[in-house]
């Protein structure tokens, strides 16, 4: 029982990080129908920038509270990632907006390769560890252990997601974003500056990615130039699981994928009678994804696409 609770907690923490990254994928997809492959790399940049800033503070010997240093790192990461998201859209995706969709997919892959190698050139190939700036407190909870960092991650991502939902459902900007997603040309005729809306979508997604990147590196205590790839892949899977283009779907998909993964890692051995070990957790996640899509071809919350008559 306590193992189950523990795995659930771990899964929810991991899942809320996935959800934050998945939001970036799904927002861009909703508007441009483009898989922004570079999004995972933006997340990685967030983690790396934060660590660089933290390293700089530690080097300067300033006497400050750990949380404040991390906060500075987080702000710097958000700033850089927002700029990155903006530039990526301008340089790589805007010229291709009327081109075949696969062309934009290839530029997205190209940007992802560039960012990855840029990070490798700047920060090197080795793992960078997150310094123990935050005092870790463990709480006993029904036989399972939960740390203050885990609680913080979950609360912060819930707040961010709630904020995003409010932004999209309640504000003028959100309405403009929804209109652009529905029909770009008509939204333009209604006086919405479509280019600005698309830029803003990338910026919001990048900011969320930066926060998620810092969370991941703080949670695992590590960052690496290659970390964005797998994280991006998982987040994209989560977005598809929930129904890509659907904001609430991305959140649900992220949380579900996180829980499925950690439950899979914990129980796959018992389920298969010891034949498959916990290193099959990714297989488990992808298998569930395929199963869900076979039953519901447009994801859990995705709208059914009406076929052209």
């Amino acid at each position, binding site marked *: 029982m306590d193992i189950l609770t523990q795995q659930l907690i771990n899964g929810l923490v991991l899942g809320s990080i996935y959800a934050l990254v998945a939001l970036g994928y799904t927002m861009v997809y909703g508007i441009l129908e483009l898989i922004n492959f570079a999004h995972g790399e933006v997340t990685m940049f967030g983690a790396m920038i934060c660590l660089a800033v933290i390293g700089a503070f530690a080097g300067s010997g300033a006497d400050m509270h750990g949380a404040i240093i991390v906060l500075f790192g987080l702000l710097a990461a958000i700033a850089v990632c927002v700029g990155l998201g903006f530039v990526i859209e301008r340089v790589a995706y805007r010229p291709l907006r009327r081109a075949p969709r696969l062309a934009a997919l290839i530029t997205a892959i190209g940007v992802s390769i560039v960012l990855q190698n840029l990070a490798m050139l700047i920060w090197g190939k080795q793992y960078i560890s997150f310094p123990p700036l935050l005092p870790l407190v463990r709480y006993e909870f029904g036989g399972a252990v939960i740390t203050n960092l885990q609680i913080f991650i979950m609360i912060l991502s819930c707040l961010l997601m709630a904020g995003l939902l409010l932004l999209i459902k309640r504000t003028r900007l959100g309405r403009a974003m929804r209109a652009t997603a529905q029909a770009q040309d008509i939204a333009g005729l209604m006086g919405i500056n479509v280019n600005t809306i698309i830029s803003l979508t990338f910026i919001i997604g990048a900011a969320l990615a930066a926060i998620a990147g810092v969370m991941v590196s703080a949670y695992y205590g590590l960052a690496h130039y290659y970390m964005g790839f797998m994280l991006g892949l998982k987040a994209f*899977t989560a977005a598809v699981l929930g129904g890509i283009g659907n904001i609430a779907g991305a959140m649900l998909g992220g949380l579900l994928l996180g829980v499925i993964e950690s439950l899979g890692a914990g129980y796959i051995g018992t389920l298969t009678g010891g034949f498959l070990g916990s290193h099959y957790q990714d297989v488990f996640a992808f298998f569930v994804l395929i199963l869900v899509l076979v039953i519901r071809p447009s994801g859990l919350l995705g709208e059914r696409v009406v076929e052209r008559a």
Partner: protein
Amino acid sequence: MTERWQKLRHDHRVVWLVYIALAMLLVALPFLTGAALGRGWVRILDFTLLYVMLALGLNIVVGYAGLLDLGYIAFYAVGAYLYALLASPHFGLHLPFWALLPMGAGIAGLFGILLGAPTLRLRGDYLAIVTLGFGEIIRIFLNNLNAPINITNGPQGVNLIDPIAFGGFSFSQTHTFFGASFPGIYTYYYLFLALALLIIFVSLRLQNSRIGRAWVAIREDEVAAEAMGINTRNIKLLAFAMGASFAGISGGLFAGFQGFISPESFNLFESIIVLCMIVLGGMGNIAGVILGAVLLTIFPEALRYIGDLQSYLFGHIVVDAADLRMLIFGLALVLIMVFRPAGLLPSVRRRHEFGSDASVLAQEQASLYDTRR
């Protein structure tokens, strides 16, 4: 100028001369490359041909039938592992090459159907993520199936795979014909060339066949295609199976050529690179796909010379070449796509799809009023 060019293109003698020159160049290529750039580059040529075969297979799935497949390398892995397990000391089996190659094609094709069948209802990017997941599942299984029963030997991979041999003729040894010595990588080149030509021929014939037209119809509008009496389920499955079997063949060749395989060779990045080859070269167009495969195999290798260029320009190596080359590779991908969104050599049909492009419009106008037609 263009008129003369058109005339030349329709002159059969000129066309034959070009073909003969091309054939001679292809025959002489390993020797020319070997003499000019060294043996290492002949090896790269061999890999180029393998990638040409792979890309042509993926072209059937993505280019013709329009099914976005991001896990294509899994079929390559199936072909390679089949060859490796049945022709190596790992199980003590040493089946002959001529039996393994069709078997690789068949089993990979079967896997293609296995992937295709549950995903028939999925469209576009949903299909992409499922194929991606499928590719990862295959790779993870290859990586972990060393326990409790050792089937794939896990991350260490399979070693000492039999080289490709035909009768008593081993492709890995040095042979002497007509007084010239042919090292292993040279004979492999000719084998791969022959098989690549075969695959090109099959692709060409498929393109204009009933099946090929059915694929294009499905790509353009599935509902309309079905209304026209095309059995979309079978035709889509056929595309998956056909593409996969090409990959199975090249996978088997890869295993025999390399002598060693591990799951690392079949990661998602490889799938993505093969997709880049066909999109960059010009999807659906065989010449474009070949060009894309050649460019994307040669270019990253050529970028290894950046180190030499740096020491020539600055007197010392500023940034390590190995670190820089993938950066330039990514930049090149972005630039090519931004400036030629339909690929380097787009297929005729795709060129027409670019209705908004002014130059294409002008071309169509010109052909509309062309009185000679």
